[in-house]
């Protein structure tokens, strides 16, 4: 299998970046897939990123899992611990006081959901991180970058597309 290389084109505005991505998609260059195209930008631009094709986000599923787990553990955990104290009954008090436990369940419901949400996000970032040192600090200022991972043979045509669409700078790395 050929080792893939990286090419990064820098653009001045989102409009041109979107047009370039569309051109890449329709170019049918051998040795290159749209999944290997990454948009890098200083701000979130969902409309431009939509040109890359569907890239669903599943974070909320993990939030839901966290919420369910947190509320279950919150209520059942505390209630079972309270039930263990049957040896220490106090007259007139319920063994498992439902309303107070609901308050703690509510707090744990939210806290665990938050933990799951952020953990899921960090894991997703790690999974999708592109293993390349090709990065330009101008991206964190005001430039839009299109990073493409492709077989070396395809790089020439990708560079041509970048040049045709007024890329300000084109960087390459192995």
């Amino acid at each position, binding site marked *: 299998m050929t080792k893939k290389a990286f090419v990064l084109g820098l653009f001045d505005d989102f409009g041109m970046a979107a047009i370039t991505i569309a051109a890449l998609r329709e170019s049918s260059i051998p040795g290159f897939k749209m999944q290997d195209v990454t948009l890098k930008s200083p701000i979130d631009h969902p409309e431009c990123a939509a040109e890359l094709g569907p890239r669903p986000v599943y974070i909320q599923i993990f939030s839901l899992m966290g919420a369910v787990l947190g509320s279950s553990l919150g209520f059942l955990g505390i209630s079972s611990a309270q039930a263990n104290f049957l040896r220490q009954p106090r007259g007139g008090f319920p063994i498992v006081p439902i309303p107070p436990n609901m308050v*703690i369940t509510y707090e744990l419901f939210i806290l665990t959901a938050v933990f799951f949400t952020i953990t899921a996000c960090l894991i997703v970032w790690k999974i999708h991180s592109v293993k390349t040192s090709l990065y330009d600090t101008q991206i964190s200022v005001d430039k839009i970058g299109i990073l493409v991972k492709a077989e070396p043979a395809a790089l020439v045509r990708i560079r041509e597309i970048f040049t045709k669409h007024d890329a300000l700078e084109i960087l390459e790395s192995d």
Partner: protein
Amino acid sequence: MTESFPSFDDTEVGIERRFIPKAKDIDEDIAWAQINGDVLRSMERPRPLYWVIFISSLGLFLFGVYCEIYQYNTGLGVADLRNPQVWGLYIATFIFWIGMSHSGTLLSAILHIMHADWRKPIYRFAEAMTTFSLMTAGLFVLVHLGRVWQFYYVVAYPNERWAWPNFSSPLVWDATAIGSYLTTSVIFLYFGMIPDLAICRDNATGYRRTFYRALSVGWKGTDRQWSNFRVTYLTIGCLLIPLAVSVHSIVATDFAVSQQPGWHTTSFPPYFVAGALYSGCAAIITLFVILRYTFRFEKYMTIPILEKLCKLTFAISMVWTYLNLIEYASVWYGTDPYAKQALIFRATGTYAWFWWAMNFLGSVLPFTLAVKRLRINIPIMLVVSLLLNVGMWIERFMIVTPTLAHGYYPWTWTDGWWPNWVQVGIVLGSFGWFNMLFMLFCKIFPSVSMYEVKEMVYHRRQPHKARKAVPAET
């Protein structure tokens, strides 16, 4: 394929923008590179006032530490805490700091969900304020304990010594709620800062670069990072709102579930939440003015944004006033003579001056926020916002001290009780602690969200172009 959008100029918003002159929240022509430069420069070279505030805060903090050490070594007696005045200023100030923490949630989470983009240049420091207020509030839980080393008794945990917390007590709920809120607030503050930390990483050298690189967790601004970031941020924001409401409701429940005349009121939880939002917004105005000058943020913390903030504070102050009147009316027309007596005592007894000051500062003074000429005057707004917070602190004092001074039993009445210097020192120390942490934060982390301001500028500069950029013609 070209998707057709209606021309922006033909829409109602477009027509309004062309014909109704309106002050801009921010200069739309500001370059993105300048935004980075201004914010990064603020972290390097603040005005001398920064050091004046920092050093005076450090001084207050050290005085507070001295008082606390003295109290710890000698006992709570030196703070003149005795029955029935067992809480003194500590719990009043605890409620004050918990209240301050609500502003960050309001500006970040609630206004974020409502797409109010004017919040973007100012929400970061409001979030920081939330975090540091909660940390300060948490200290008072420890300070007011006689045996500080057994603080973990309030946490809901089972142990073999059968020191089982009373789950029916709102004090246990407090520990859980405040712990959850503090954790979530720290996560929310940090997570929202990641793209800005990457900017700091790209511009830093040496150990600072290592520091920011570690905190920016590999952020490169990729489309997948942005999309997951947005969803995560929104989700945490949505989870934070009910948490914030629950925290102050629970603090209110600490009082409302008791039989003490003056506290046993159903409207306490919403009253506390409204008061929290109110004092938080007033504090944001204060910090807005200070940061604007100290860090040269005149381009970002603009007068139109200050105006919006003032309008929001005014609206919340009226909600607070309404709930306050509801509380007075329900006690006055109610059938509980003890509660009515407690209300009369507040208005006419030893602490009457405070009661009238609270009502004036909390309900009358906010009308200055409704006057445009005053609203756009920064020095006046600084003074007004400080006075509003003085009023809100007095409100908390009025909840705790006069109520405990005038309970059911005449032999427990302590009409002439006033907090002594140890209590005052620890309270002043808490303000020093908060200011010190806040100022340190602004020096180490970007106190204006660079990426959000860029978004704000971008979408305002070219609303129709931004939409049309999507359908690419090939």
